[in-house]
């Protein structure tokens, strides 16, 4: 997939490599790089995923990084049905309605 100039994209870059992490971090963190993801409008003519590009962010900064996602969507949601939670809620509703299910 190709992104065109002016499109809203997400880029990715490495700020600190695995060996450059702060001395205080635990080993599982020290073993991986410090990564940055930021979104903005593509400044290059056109680009494919993985290509190093420049974007203009909402604050007006020019930032360089590898093109990661074109028009990223917000992926967080309300999650699955959680029976344990819904059961707890129903118990409380029954109590409020004057039922004897409480306790």
């Amino acid at each position, binding site marked *: 997939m190709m992104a065109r100039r002016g499109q809203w994209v997400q880029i990715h870059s490495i700020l600190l490599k695995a060996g450059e992490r*702060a001395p205080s*971090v635990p080993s599982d963190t020290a073993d991986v790089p410090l990564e940055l993801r930021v979104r903005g409008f593509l400044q290059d003519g056109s680009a494919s995923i993985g290509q190093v590009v420049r974007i203009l962010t*909402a604050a*007006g900064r020019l930032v360089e990084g590898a093109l990661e996602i074109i028009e990223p969507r917000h992926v967080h949601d309300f999650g699955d049905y*959680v029976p*344990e939670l819904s059961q707890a*809620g129903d118990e409380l509703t029954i109590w409020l309605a004057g039922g004897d299910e409480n306790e």
Partner: protein
Amino acid sequence: MSDMSYESVMSRKAQIMRASIGIEYDKYELEGIGFDYEGLMSDTAYPMEEITAIQRETGVGNTPLVELKNITRLVREISEPGKGARIFLKDEAANPSGSFKDRRASVSVARAKELGYRGVIAATSGNYGAAVASQAMKRGLKCIVIQECYDRTGTGQPEILEKARACEAYGAEVAQLSVGPELFYYFLLLLEETGYFNASLYTPFAIAGIESLGFEIAQQSRRVIGKDPNFVLATHAGGGNLTGTARGLIKAGAEKTSVIGASVDLSGLHMASDRDFNRKSFTTGHTGFGIPFAVFPDRSDVPRNAARPLRYMDRYLLVKQGEVFYVTEMLARLEGLQRGPAGNTSLTAAIALARELPEDSTIVVQETEYTGAGKAPSAQLTFARKNGVKVVRGDPLTHDVPGKVIAIPENPSQIKYTELGLDRLRESYIRELIKRQIVPSEKDLDYLAREIKLTRDEAARLLKEVSR
């Protein structure tokens, strides 16, 4: 172009800080270990009338105080006869961006504007980002929010993703980092690159902005309940919430009201660990921030932290993860209020505490926050399961293990708090100083006593004990 290596940027910290806040912190340093906290607050922050005026300009504050009548009735039903305090809730979700953080951001952003900065930067994964973004836009400033958001696989904590969405909705740039305290390095880099204002959570203006919350609680309680509340419960993480609220209560003359901190117990999980990051089902209001910031406040992103919770905390209560999810469900089912996770931490502690108190005593839970995708209990519990955390029905006291098991109580009687004694925190406070070669001596005793809320003699005794 200046050197961008980690060491080099960190070594420029003091000069970057000075340029980005506009406070001469050095002026307030005392001989020895201390600084003039009240001097710093009164010189650089604003009096209550000005804070209120600033907040009215952008629609912040003046939120309702709601009595939780059904929850109070439930508490009384499971308590001994005559027990069960009245519980009230300050509905801070009614602020523009949906939490009390608007109070904090409103004053910071007004200050940035007054000082002529073109933009503001905040390092936060929480509601504060959305608050700064919202306030900055209203005042025509640019805004960058830096979040710790992803683990090594690029998986983001749902609640933090939601905050990013909110920040972008207000028109801010969001820089999302993977796990690690070096976020501070990038924060400094951006301050230097942009010349923007450091809208830290911990400046005097930010904390002064929260004082209006405590002030309003006192005024509303007098109107609604007819007296000052006996207890105000504050969800505690970095300590600003509790500090600002307590200072506001004192300014309103509610000196007898006892201020209690509450956090979710996440003991055993490492805060800087990439692996533990997405096994945390709470992004704030937990012991991973609550304890470190209480015992060494000056770990923050400013030279001297204006949030100093041990000065104001009367008790510190811990609750379990599953209890907070249960109480969030309870708030929806019994009070018709869907509200976010953080405020429900202190509500959980309030329910447990209310059972021990006489019916004529009152508790104010001092905040709520907005909820929605990523923040709802179903979102967090689904995410927990995906990360290998078990979700069960069971007594949290015996079943809950942070990062491993979340136990949803089987009935409301299983909502309990555990008390973390303040003396333990006070000892840690002294140890943290000594660990950093900041060794308190005789001449620091007045400062130390104020910092840990003891008399001079008690502080002297504790210092001697710890130094032994």
